[in-house]
Structures are given as C-alpha cells and as structure tokens.
C-alpha cells in the first residue's frame, strides 16, 4: 500500500463526509428508545422528504422546530394508565423523545411544510434551485 493510495482513501472519505454524512447529521436524541421515532429521509431533485413515524400520537403531543438549520422533533407519548386492568404484554415505547438533525445548506428553511396523518409526520423541505449562470456580454470597443 503506497502513501498515495492512502491519500486517495482519505480524499474519498472526506468527500463522503461532506456530501453524505455531514448534512443530515444527527445532532442528538433523547428518550428511552434510541430509534424512536423512526425517521426516513428521501431526496428528489427539488426537495427532501422526511417521514417520521409517530403512531398513536396527536398533533398536541409533539412539536417540530427549525432553528439555525437544526431541525428538532420532540414530544411525549405517555404510558397508558391502566385502571383496573393488567398488562399482558408491553412492547411499544413510551415516554419523552427528541431527535435533532443538521439540515443541508441547500434546504430552504423558510419554506418547510409539514402534515400529519395516520401516525405519520411528513415534512417537505424544498431545495434551493440555484439560478442559472448568467452570461455577461463583453462589449468590444
């Protein structure tokens, strides 16, 4: 293995970091379950779409916030209080949760929209469409 090859790997790793990992880097989570709520991120040419699974929750149980390119989803799914009842099996996760993501530079944060249906929070994040390069006419004197 030559040093050159190592440098190539390093370069590729840096690119991978810059293009894939750093945008959307998860900045933190809190809660009982590491992976709750589950998040999918999809990318198209002109937008990203985040799908957050929040089954059993109502709008008032969670909040969504974007501050300084950091998107935060947090809320609480209270454990049901059983009166005159007993648990036979309990597999669902309860309690407070928080997930925080760094948004890529290209996201237009002012235009983020979200909707909630069937336990799914869908967040639409438009990508800034860079203006086409403008040709500058050179006057010849």
């Amino acid at each position, binding site marked *: 293995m030559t040093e050159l090859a190592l440098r190539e790997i390093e370069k590729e790793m840096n690119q991978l970091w810059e293009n894939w990992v750093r945008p959307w880097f998860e900045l933190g989570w809190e809660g009982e379950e590491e*992976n709750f709520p*589950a998040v*999918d991120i999809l990318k*198209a040419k002109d937008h990203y779409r985040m799908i957050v699974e929040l089954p059993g929750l109502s709008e008032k149980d969670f909040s969504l916030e974007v501050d300084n390119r950091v998107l935060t989803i947090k809320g609480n799914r209270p454990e049901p209080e059983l009166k005159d009842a007993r648990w*036979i*099996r*309990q597999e669902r996760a309860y309690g407070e949760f928080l997930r925080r993501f760094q948004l890529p530079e290209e996201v237009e944060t002012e235009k983020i929209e979200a909707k909630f249906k*069937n*336990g799914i929070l869908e967040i639409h994040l438009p990508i800034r469409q860079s203006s086409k390069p403008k040709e500058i006419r050179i006057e010849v004197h």
Partner: protein
Amino acid sequence: MALVRWDPFKELDLLQERISRLFDEAWLRPARRGERTWIPPVDIYETENEIVVKAELPDMDEKDIEVKIENNVLSIKGEKKLEKEEKKENYHLIESSYGSFYRSFSLPGNVDADKAIAKYEKGVLKITLPKKEEAKPKQIEVKAG
C-alpha cells in the same frame, strides 16, 4: 527513545476502525436495508370485561391489514409498502420498517370471538375482545341468615 518502525497497515487498521465507527454511529446503525419482514410492536392488556390488543402499524391503509380469529388464535397480518416512486426520490436514510408482517397470539378460552372489534386509528390497530358473559366475575350477594 525506542525507534518504532512505521507500519502503514496499522494506520490502515486504525482508519478502517474509524470508518466503521463513523458508519455505525452516523447512520447505517438503524437502517434495515433488504429486510423484507418486520415485527410491529404490540401491547396487550386485560380488564374485567375485555382484552385489548394494540399494534403499531403507522402509514397503512386499513384494507391492507388482515385480522383473524381462528381456533382461538388471533392473527394480524399485512404488508407495508415503501412509496417513493411517483416523485423520483432516492432514499437517504431508512429507519422505518416495511415489508410483510405477521403476528399471532393464542387467546384465553373466555374470549367471545364473535364480538371482537378491530379499529385502525392514528396508525394504531386496536382490537377489542370482549369476554364471554359467564367468564366475567359475578358478585354474589351475601344475605343475612
């Protein structure tokens, strides 16, 4: 000071270890690529009059969920599809579970299967299984002799 020979392989090992850690921590950790079956989490509790089963099935259509009681066994099955086609999207991160699922639970003998009710709301399937009349505890009045 002892001279240590430079060992590029050791550095490569270290690099590899760092890369693996990066992937584990950053985002391949929760991804379940290629896995086509999943196990939806289920809560079950019992009250005096009924047994309640709640299964987490976010982002589904009720017609894609099948609930059956046969030979005193409750089964829930269906398939959750990935939808992304129409918008020409690529996956960046997948943590949600998708594919087909199947769960089954044997029921106690005191359940009245004919009166079972299943409802899908807010991504949760709730099945209420009433107990048979004779299975409910009865208060017996004690009379003074």
